[in-house]
């Protein structure tokens, strides 16, 4: 019922506006076109300059309201992010300056030069000096921005430092799978046709004659995880990005980084986290804070729910966490899992590593 009333009210408002507009046109015709045009002109000229003033106030107010909710309000969480933010601030100053000048000129001219009988418009078809000035000045400003931008771009997209922690990220509808190289620091080979319920990435765990695939021992110690990945504070991390189905995008808002996940075409990105998750929670005074991975490329009806989490921890915490992980291989082949033998947990991890290393050296 309320819907019906809302629609009725809207229709009524329309009707009233329409009637007023019609009436005002009759009045205009009776008054004479010349006169009513001048009146309209005055009103709209005034509105133009009011719009300018209210608009500038509105921009200030909007900034007051929302600046604190943006990422610019706190320190970026990566070394790269600092450069993004400082570049963004410079760009804001330059474009903001041009914005104010041109908008003020536009609405002020509109107001100032509204039609009067007193003024003769000025015949001013061109002026080469002026045109050269406003070709050259933007060109110079843009050159500055391009130089800064490209320096950052090459630094962001350049090779990751050799000590970087490598993590493989694979997107799928609708979630993220992470892979660590394990103790041998080598990612084993994988092939997408091997993917099944126990092998979500298709790691090459055994010979497969019909696919012409050989067992890759490097893959036996690879650690595969869903939803949450761990990285180390102040240590560069390089993501090797894949997709299992459609194009996704690893969006790392807090780190100011982003890279598509393309099926069949691996991509990379790297960054250096500056604060642990816990430090950020304290900084932002938000105990629920997490570094979230958002999918930033339309990937299907569950796109909005494709969430991952990056835990940034200290080296010590990371090592302790890593020690508790067991290779995905043992999930598929529990009988080969050395930790199933009665041994203390930490020792088990160590010995399993040795065993895997031995196995892999034998295989070669």
């Amino acid at each position, binding site marked *: 019922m309320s819907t019906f009333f809302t629609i009725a009210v809207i229709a009524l408002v329309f009707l009233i506006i329409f009637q007023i507009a019609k009436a005002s046109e009759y009045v205009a*015709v009776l008054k004479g076109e010349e006169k009513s045009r001048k009146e309209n002109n005055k009103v709209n000229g005034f509105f133009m300059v009011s719009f300018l003033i209210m608009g500038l106030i509105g921009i200030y107010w909007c900034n007051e309201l929302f600046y604190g909710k943006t990422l610019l309000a706190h320190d970026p969480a990566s070394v790269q992010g600092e450069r993004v933010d400082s570049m963004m601030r410079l760009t804001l100053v330059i474009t903001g300056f041009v914005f104010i000048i041109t908008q003020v000129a536009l609405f002020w001219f509109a107001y100032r030069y509204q039609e009067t009988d007193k003024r003769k418009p000025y015949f001013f*078809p061109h002026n080469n000096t002026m045109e050269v000035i406003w070709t050259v000045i933007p060109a110079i400003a843009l050159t500055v921005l391009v130089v800064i931008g490209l320096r950052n771009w090459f630094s962001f997209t350049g090779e990751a430092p050799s000590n970087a922690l490598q993590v493989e990220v694979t997107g799928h509808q609708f979630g993220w799978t992470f892979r660590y190289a394990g103790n041998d620091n080598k990612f084993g080979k994988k092939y997408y046709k091997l993917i099944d319920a126990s092998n979500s990435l298709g790691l090459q765990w055994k010979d497969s004659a019909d696919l012409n695939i050989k067992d890759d021992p490097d893959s036996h110690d690879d650690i595969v995880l869903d939803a949450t990945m761990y990285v180390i504070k102040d240590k560069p991390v390089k993501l090797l990005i894949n997709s299992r189905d*459609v194009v996704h995008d690893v969006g790392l808002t807090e780190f100011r980084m982003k890279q598509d996940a393309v099926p069949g075409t691996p*991509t990379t990105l790297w960054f250096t986290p500056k604060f642990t998750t816990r430090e950020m929670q304290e900084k932002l005074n938000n105990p629920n804070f997490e570094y979230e991975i958002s999918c930033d490329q339309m990937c*299907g009806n569950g796109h909005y729910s494709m*969430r991952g989490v990056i835990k940034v921890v200290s080296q010590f915490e990371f090592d302790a966490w890593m020690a508790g992980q067991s290779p995905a291989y043992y999930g598929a082949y529990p009988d080969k899992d050395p930790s199933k033998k009665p041994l203390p947990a930490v020792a088990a991890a160590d010995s399993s590593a040795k065993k895997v290393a031995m196995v892999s050296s034998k295989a070669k």
Partner: protein
Amino acid sequence: MSNEAVLHTNVEGAITHDEHHDEHHEHHHHETFITKYVFSQDHKMIAKQFLITGMVWAVLGGLMSVLFRLQLGYPDSHFPFLENILGKWWVQNGQITAQAYYALVTTHGTVLVFFVLTAGLSGTFANFLIPLQVGARDMASPFLNMLSYWFFFSASVVMLSSIFVETGPFSGGWTAYPPLSALKDASPGSGTGMDLWLIAMALFVVSSLLGGLNYIVTILNLRTKGMSMTRLPLTIWSLFFTAVLGVLSFPVLLSGFILLIFDRNFGTSFYLSDIYISGVGALPNEGGNAILFQHLFWFLGHPEVYIILLPAMGMVSEILSVNSRKPIFGYMAMVGSLFAIAILAFLVWAHHMFVTGLNPFLGSIFVLLTLLIAVPSAIKVFNWLTTLWRGNIRFTPAMMFAIGFVSLFISGGLTGIWLGNSALDIHLHDTMFIVAHFHIVMGVASMFGMFAGIYHWYPKMYGRYLNNTLGYIHFWITMVGAYLIFWPMHYEGLAGMPRRYYSYSAWESFKQFGGLNQFISTVAMIVFSVQILFLLNFFYSIWKGRKVTTQNPYGSNTLEWTAPIRPGHGNWPGEIPEVHRWAYDYAKDGREFIPQTTPVDPNEANH
């Protein structure tokens, strides 16, 4: 009625299309309803067909945005009445479903970009203005021109029908990136919905090519005596470059679509490789590259932005000059910057792909070329500002929208400098920042250009005026609303909020904008309803508007105002007028305006 009498007393019957003594009419066949209004070959009628079809799409596309904004603004509210109207596929428990949300977002984008702002804007005004402003009786090939409309119409029908198929319309975003768009198992919308989407788009490309070739040929070959290229109004220049852009880039899009059709239906692997779909298993396709489609798509996709924007720029230049009562400042610079934009439009497509794993060196070239576009854009803005300076401005509704266009073009153009710089784009790519950017600079600004054009040339189209008061209401609410919707949206982007999200409630980083989203959605609804008011004004005025009583109501120089108030097929009774000067002799030598048809006085100053 006395009111009617008031409105129409001043009508002079002197100059109407009823003058039958002209030679052109004599050998013209008798027109039936079908040949005059349906399968018309008159460019003016075809223009109106494009316009009205575009309006229908604008209403549908706008309504779609209202629906998905309802979800974004009021994620916790229930609207049971929508369920009754739209059905369970779209609305469940009074809430828009995720599949419906993505279908709406996708269709909104496709429809607004192609059907409204390409066909509705450039289709309308290229058809209407080119013959009238260059001094031609019609297009070079009126028949192809008619076909162009009917291909667009059939594209519209197919696109519309895709909304009603069981698995829903295509819902993978208007850019239709494969593999999502190629695999019906990846998204239900990529089934029949995508088939129809592709057919509709292919028909649309045909329509656009037929139209574009016609526009180019007409502008190059059918200019009247004395109308050299440098005497053309800027509208024609902009429509010319628009047509060139379309003719050179739409075929590339079609080729991309054809490969996609092969991948979808014939088992090829142009875009597909290494894909495992949950619930289906591994696909046999290997060796393709999904990024190839993005290159083909954006090779059209970026020029498309200018296909949308250039006609608006041209019309705004003309309207600003006429209503400032002074010449456009820097005519040659305006033509040159249009040319520069048209060339650069082909060289910047990969700036949509900075985060696809593009080679960084290649990326750097695209940064350079992208930011280079800011230079001709800046020239245009400064020239428009100088055109207003020391003018004698008449605020007709068309002029208001033209000024609004410049304001929006500045606002949206400047954020382009942020996004064109790849290092910043990494951060802002696919966030609400980019949604704000392109809606302001391409969507709303071009809409403003279109409104300006409609208000300005309505008297020429229908021989009647639109209601001015409604025009002013329309302008101010739309102008204020556009800024209220899209300005704060930049802040959402600066918080990293991704676009095309059905719901942000599960995200710790993005859920702080609930109130703002509600505000934006509410304003969007108000702005949408004001557009309905404009449509009422439009259709009411076709039959009931104040009649145009003078041939040249704005005191304008261009040729269309030398034609009768309601020009017949053939535009001018008798001879086509001869042109002696450029289109912008306003305020020259103390004369208010000097039409292009006025011979140059030997004593006249040289500009």
